[in-house]
């Protein structure tokens, strides 16, 4: 058994930020990630981030990832890669499978769950064919693995993931045949949408995929128009030539460990569904478990980093490394920053949903 003051699960933007804050305060931190490399999904984000300069806007995700890794290395943060946390017991003990061949128990005084999210699926005949994949999967292949998973791509979903990955697929050398959106209006930030549109990609609003054709791989895709209640309108089908379908239809938080730990949940559809209730310190309803990042609601890397800092600072305070007063001052400052990130047309909805969670989290 390994004993640590603070165990953090997930070395993406939230987990890295949490570990940096806690380690800076003097906490003995163990950061655990199932992947061979830390950084979560940051290293596939080759576009520039939004927000103000204070939120690292204008900087590409890959560079933010590199910066976080440099800081965590400088601080000497202890990190286990290829460590899969498969269980949690008594709110303190993590069951970790290391290098896929041995298991180890980590006993931690405090735990921060920063497990991230997984992509949603959309089901249609042919959705199981090779060539149908998550938009994030295609993004991983092109930007991290540097291989092109398809040549003629249909993107289902026009939110930020859909338009950003569509553009990055073109940068990687693919043709984007169409971007489909089930809703009557497009979902992504205008600047990303405009870039794809300027490149000549047709957008189909009120459209979805009826089926994908193919024997061993996608060979063509039938699309169909949707009415106001999202029902398919017969007779509006058209067949597009494509070898790849990317699904950019939202994300679901990876909450398994929070469920196992007995955290109380609430249902907040706007942020991805069932989410652990938390307070303004990112504390769950379990006494020694914090959350940060997409597990607490689907947002962006910029908010994940701020939430990670909140969790790291407040875990350090509870462990006695930071005074209550100092933690409060820093917590309030981070909330100012989060509130400014959660403003504007897209941000306000997230802020309203977060406020609901915080109401539930007030004890």
């Amino acid at each position: 058994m390994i004993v640590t003051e603070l165990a953090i699960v997930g070395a993406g933007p939230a987990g890295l930020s949490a570990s940096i804050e806690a380690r800076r305060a003097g906490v003995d931190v163990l950061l655990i990630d199932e992947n061979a490399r830390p950084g979560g999904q940051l290293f596939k984000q080759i576009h520039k981030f939004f927000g103000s300069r204070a939120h690292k806007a204008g900087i590409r995700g890959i560079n933010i990832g590199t910066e976080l890794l440099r800081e965590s290395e400088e601080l000497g943060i202890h990190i286990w890669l290829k460590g899969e946390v498969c269980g949690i017991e008594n709110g303190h003990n993590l069951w970790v499978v290391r290098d896929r061949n041995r298991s180890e128990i980590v006993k931690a005084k405090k735990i921060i769950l920063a497990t991230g999210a997984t992509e949603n699926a959309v089901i249609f005949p042919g959705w199981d064919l090779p060539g149908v994949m998550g938009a994030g999967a295609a993004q991983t292949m092109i930007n991290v693995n540097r291989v092109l998973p398809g040549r003629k791509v249909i993107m289902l979903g026009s939110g930020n993931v859909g338009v950003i990955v569509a553009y990055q697929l073109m940068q990687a050398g693919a043709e984007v045949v169409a971007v489909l959106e089930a809703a009557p209006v497009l979902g992504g930030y205008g600047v990303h949408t405009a870039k794809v549109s300027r490149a000549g990609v047709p957008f189909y609003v009120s459209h979805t995929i009826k089926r994908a054709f193919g024997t061993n791989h996608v060979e063509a895709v039938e699309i169909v128009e949707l009415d106001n209640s999202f029902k398919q309108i017969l007779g509006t089908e058209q067949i597009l030539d494509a070898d790849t379908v990317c699904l950019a239809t939202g994300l679901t938080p990876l909450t398994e460990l929070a469920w196992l730990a007995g955290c109380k949940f609430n249902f907040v559809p706007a942020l991805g569904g069932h989410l652990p209730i938390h307070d303004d310190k990112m504390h769950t309803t379990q006494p020694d478990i914090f959350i940060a990042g997409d597990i607490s609601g689907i947002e962006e890397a910029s908010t994940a980093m701020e939430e990670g800092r909140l969790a790291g600072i407040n875990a350090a305070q509870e462990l006695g490394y930071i005074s209550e007063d100092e933690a409060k001052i820093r917590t309030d400052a981070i909330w100012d920053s989060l509130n400014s990130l959660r403003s504007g047309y897209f941000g306000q909805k997230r802020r309203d949903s977060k406020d609901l969670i915080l109401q539930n989290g007030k004890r």
Partner: protein
Amino acid sequence: MNRIVNHPILDKEKPAKEVEIFVDDKPIIAREGEMIAAALIANGIFINRYTIHKHKPRGIYCAIGRCTDCIMTVDGIPNIRTCVTEVKDGMRITTQKGTGVWS
């Protein structure tokens, strides 16, 4: 054949050591340290397995080790997630049928 060589944003790739792996006994060239699924796509291989009942082909789906659609038999061990498993020189990979066979 599907490697992205020129990219407007990403740096030029550092030269990688090439290794030889075997897919259904056929040798292909992969890059040391890359994920098996990426090496297969680079070589034009898009089917990782066939399902147990209907024998339908499956390829990568999530590419981050969650969905298990890309599992294959690797060095005699079935159900290996190829999107999160690195290639090693001389590795023997089999297109998996159903739940696969240990060997």
